[in-house]
């Protein structure tokens, strides 16, 4: 169990921001959960959206929302990615938590093409830890020591694996583990600051040091109920790493909004805004789950990056991801 360090609450009420989606991914009848944005450095407008589906596998979409590929890999819960080196060449490594068999699975994104990594699946529960069960949330992270796959479980355990590569094959080694009090899911890493954010769905958001050698003391960021998290669940988390401003974004499922917390070094992030995605040419966002954000330009349609949010209600009883222009949000931020 971790030590909880609770700081004083932020005082200012969050600004209410209403935007509309600029694009949406093709709807599925499955159980869409979590997106990750792969930014194409050669052609930002040709970037991709990876979307996990808890009943089907991994979908790959372009920025118009059209499906580009589908991997029928089973019950993938959360997905995330980081730059990686494979056989000496730069690629992107994407990982996902797989609920069928409590494994972590990995994909290589190379020149805009997605393929299975070798090996594809890795057991996420060490045999010496029988109390760990029901794989759930997942994020990737990086620091000077390497690339990490961080996974949590409904049992509250958080396991941090170092990801290494030899001759094109990836391997995981457990470098740290700890436990939170209740069921977690959403996680994200602030690589620049060496912070790992973990959300307990019914409790709130905690921050931990990312370094495997650091203590697992938990620093309270925002606990339910609060101005930005008046209702549970808190779901997906992501970092907006802009040149001028940096934010933690949290999926406030209970109020169907994205909460935006201003990041300022090691200070406690203050919730500045709540973003509602209202109906326009594209329908609005309800019961949002996973989300992702990037500050990198994604072509003319998204010059300051984009926010992606899962949307639970669409025609034909489908679920999809909505894509919002970050410039629309930035213009309304305090």
């Amino acid at each position, binding site marked *: 169990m971790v030590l909880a360090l609770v700081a004083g609450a932020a005082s200012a009420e969050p600004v*209410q921001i*209403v935007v509309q989606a600029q694009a949406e991914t093709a709807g599925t009848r499955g159980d869409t959960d979590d997106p990750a944005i792969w930014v194409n450095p050669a052609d930002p407008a040709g970037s991709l959206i990876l979307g996990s589906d808890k009943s089907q596998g991994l979908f790959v979409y372009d920025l118009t929302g059209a499906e580009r590929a589908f991997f029928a890999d089973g019950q993938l819960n959360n997905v995330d990615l980081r730059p990686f080196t494979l056989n000496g060449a730069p690629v992107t490594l994407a990982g996902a938590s797989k609920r069928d068999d409590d494994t972590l699975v990995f994909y290589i994104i190379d020149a805009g093409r997605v393929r299975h990594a070798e090996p594809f699946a890795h057991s996420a529960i060490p045999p010496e830890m029988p109390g760990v069960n029901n794989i759930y949330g997942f994020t990737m992270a990086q620091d000077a020591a390497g690339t990490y796959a961080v996974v949590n479980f*409904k049992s509250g355990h958080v396991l941090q694996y170092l990801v290494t590569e030899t001759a094109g094959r990836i391997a995981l080694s457990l470098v740290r583990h700890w436990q939170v009090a209740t069921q977690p*899911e959403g996680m994200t890493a602030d690589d620049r600051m060496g912070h790992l954010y973990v959300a307990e*769905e*019914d409790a709130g958001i905690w921050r931990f040091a990312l370094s495997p050698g650091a203590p697992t003391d938990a620093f309270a960021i925002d606990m339910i109920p609060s101005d930005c998290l*008046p*209702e*549970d*669940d808190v779901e997906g988390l992501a970092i907006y790493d802009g040149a001028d401003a940096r934010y933690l974004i949290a999926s406030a*499922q*209970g*109020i*169907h*909004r994205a909460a935006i917390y201003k990041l300022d070094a090691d200070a406690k992030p203050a919730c500045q805004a*709540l973003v*509602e995605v*209202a*109906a326009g040419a594209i*329908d*609005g966002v*309800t*019961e949002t789950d996973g989300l992702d954000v990037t500050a990198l330009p994604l072509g003319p349609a998204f010059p300051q990056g984009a926010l992606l949010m899962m949307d*639970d*209600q*669409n*025609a*034909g*009883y489908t679920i999809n991801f909505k894509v919002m222009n970050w410039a629309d949000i930035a213009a309304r931020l305090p």
Partner: protein
Amino acid sequence: MRKLMPTLIPVLSTALLALPALLALPAHAQDAVATDGNTLTAAPTEWLGDTPHFVMMGTLNGRTLDIQMTDIAAAEGVDEFAGKREYLPGDAGAFRYADFEVALKAAIGGVERSIELEFENDDYATHPLPASFALQGDTFPKGALAFLEIQQEWETAGVSVNDEVGGMTGNLMLSLDTGTADDKGLRADGLIGGYAVAEQGGETVIISFTVPVAEYEIDG
């Protein structure tokens, strides 16, 4: 994953409403939800039998409900009507039958709607049928008590409805619960049928259902 909450969460998405006002709305989207060709002139007074059906009549969260699908096979606009059992870990590796869901996806009044009922008890398997349960506010209650949550979701032009009403009072009469147990004693098929009268804030909704079970889930 969204979990049960004994609360009411109205959502009306418009570009003009600030969040505090939005959350304070006591009743919203004052539309009636009614199926076409209704023949019942009053809500049923008992379970309507083992033919798969879904009848929900009354008022809930300020909205009039008159859903009369007395025979699901003959009802129009039904996309999905399915039940699910949920089990929780019990003693000595056993499981407790702690929850069942009744989920309807259907176009009603020209709008694609999702309506979901979720009934909780400590272990339904310990209650011989027919069994009567008093509805109340605690989740997974022991004894002849049950917790009911009703979810309604749909979108129309510019409006998203996403209601969750839980902790209602009233009664559930569970009349039918069939299925084939696997080697763990869990059942992913069969039928669940019952009749409920649920009340909250001066509103009453009456429900009769018989739903085919399509799956089970082990939670916790």
